[in-house]
């Protein structure tokens, strides 16, 4: 009892000292709370479906950011990992009757493998070369999928997969929790030593090598990590849709991922996640105007980027917070002095 009280107190202190000091952290906390509490407010299956799919794509967008935003290896073929994850889990589920908790991780493992296979030829490519080359991989795989219709179902895909959970709310929580956990992990990764090295690789690879870092390993690591998370999202998607088809490999899928991530703000992880949570429901929201849906979507993206070229989230963040010129710690925009070093903020 006492221990519980103590913990509660500790928790409260942490919340007050670490979360409540910055609006962005409060927003993240609210985001967690709202998502987890959603079913208490509404159990509308359509809404739930949209949120679940949004979550799946949020993982995907964040995984792209992990690879491309951080290490600067622009991947224009991210659908590859998604598709491999989806197809692998689908095949395992259909033919070996593996339950989702087995097939999804194995699908992710397959995506990691794909990451390696794609990563090795891409190791020596840079910038735009890499971007344009990666675009080719899902198309090649799509060719293979069509060439082997007996295994892959060709254009029809593999359908009739098992659901992860048969209850609406159960499903919801499984997906939401997985999303929140995975995104937090990704964010943690980028916040660690590895994150710094990823950043540095983006800036100047040769200099990183000369600093004694095995850049090959880190670049492949980026590919594998990104593949892993994208593969999970692919597997989750397949089990949610109960079908894995060639649409998971389409160019438009790869493009969407890039749009989400850049729209939200690259090299942040939370940016792409937030962007998916804005753009995906937006596309649903404009259903009332079907002829202009894509048009509206494109115009919104274009206009926002015109004013916030760094992405939406960094822009918002800069509005509500500002960095201390001395110690670079972030502060609420309304403060006059820094909360740590008390330097003047204007």
């Amino acid at each position, binding site marked *: 009892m006492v221990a519980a009280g103590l913990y509660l107190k500790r928790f409260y202190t942490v919340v007050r000292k670490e979360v409540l000091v910055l609006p962005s952290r409060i927003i993240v906390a609210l985001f967690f709370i709202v998502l987890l509490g959603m079913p208490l407010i509404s159990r509308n299956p359509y809404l739930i479906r949209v949120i679940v799919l949004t979550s799946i794509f949020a993982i995907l967008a964040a995984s792209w950011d992990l690879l491309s935003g951080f290490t600067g290896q*622009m991947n224009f073929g991210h659908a590859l990992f998604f598709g491999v994850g989806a197809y692998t889990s689908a095949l395992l589920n259909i033919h070996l009757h593996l339950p989702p908790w087995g097939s999804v991780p194995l699908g992710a493992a397959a995506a990691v493998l794909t990451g390696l296979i794609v990563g090795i*030829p891409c190791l*020596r*490519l*840079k910038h*735009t*070369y890499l*971007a*344009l*080359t990666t*675009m*080719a*991989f899902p*198309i*090649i795989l*799509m*060719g*293979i999928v*069509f*060439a082997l219709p007996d295994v892959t179902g060709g254009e029809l895909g593999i359908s009739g997969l098992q659901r992860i959970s048969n209850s609406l709310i159960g499903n919801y929580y499984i997906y939401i929790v997985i999303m929140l956990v995975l995104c937090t992990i990704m964010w943690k990764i980028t916040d660690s030593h590895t994150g710094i090295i990823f950043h540095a690789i983006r800036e100047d*690879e*040769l200099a990183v090598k000369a600093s004694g870092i095995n850049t090959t390993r880190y670049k492949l690591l980026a590919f594998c990590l990104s593949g892993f998370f994208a593969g999970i999202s692919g597997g989750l998607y397949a089990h949610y849709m109960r079908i894995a088809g060639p649409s998971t490999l389409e*160019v438009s899928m790869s*493009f969407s991922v*890039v*749009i989400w991530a*850049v*729209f939200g703000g*690259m090299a942040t992880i939370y940016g792409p996640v937030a962007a998916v949570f804005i753009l995906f429901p937006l596309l649903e929201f404009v259903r009332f105007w079907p*002829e*202009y849906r*894509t*048009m509206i*979507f*494109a*115009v919104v*993206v*274009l206009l926002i*980027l*015109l004013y916030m*070229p*760094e*992405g939406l989230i960094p822009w918002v963040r800069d509005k509500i917070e500002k960095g201390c010129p001395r110690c670079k710690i972030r502060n609420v925009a309304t403060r006059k002095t820094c909360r740590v070093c008390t330097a003047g903020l204007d």
Partner: protein
Amino acid sequence: MNIIITGLITGSMLALLAISFSLIFGVARIVNIAHTAFYMVAAYCIFSLTGKFGLNPVAGMMIAVVVVTVLGLLAYKFLIDPIREHEAAVLIATIALAMIFQEAVMLIFTGDYRTVSALIEGYFIVTGVKVFYQQVLTFGVVLVILGILWVLLMKTKLGLAIRSTAEDREVANLMGMNDSRLAMITMGISVALAGFTGAVLAPLTVLSPYMWMEPLIMMMAVVVLGGLGSIKGSFVAAYILGFTEALVVFMIPKGAFLKGSVALSIMILVLLLRPEGLFGISFEEER
């Protein structure tokens, strides 16, 4: 023989698209995904001008190129230029632009497939193979344009300036080069060429609002294979990929749908050996 002709035509088209694409990439580091969308707009322009308003096809072509160029310059000025410092944002902006063009075309012309009649009808026979006059015409025009481009970029000051700005805008300024105007000019040339490609090619293909997707990828493959910024490279690579596609169609007729995949695989194989592309410049230490 067939392989040669098909390869030549596909190759020339790819070369034109790829070179005009890498032009603007070269100067302003803009990866213009909407490039082929401009090509589509030009094709539709011709369709409506010749089909709906009954204009003479040549006049239609000219107007189409002008329209597309103006469109391209406007888009550049108001949508791309303001965010040019942010490569990723530009990238998305051009994707969005392509989507907008696609949707606009869809709204105006619907999603039905359309065709445009050839400038010269008919065909002739070489070594037992039927060749359309239109194809020959296209091929000839493309070669001429490529030649002009070559001279423009390699032999004139404009070309020098374009390549200088591509490398270091700040220093280019110190040489008296107006980087923003150069970017504008290049964008104009680039888009005009895309429009021109669309115009010449319109009679040979089927128009649909999604027609920009297919050549986009092959175009990028050509640019990468040839080496970014290398005109010679794009030229050679375009024909390599063009012939590859043609070969696939002939060697494995049942696998004709694989032509794209095969061509892309070849590109990746080449890049494995030469990461900077066929004619790209590389620094040994950066391998």
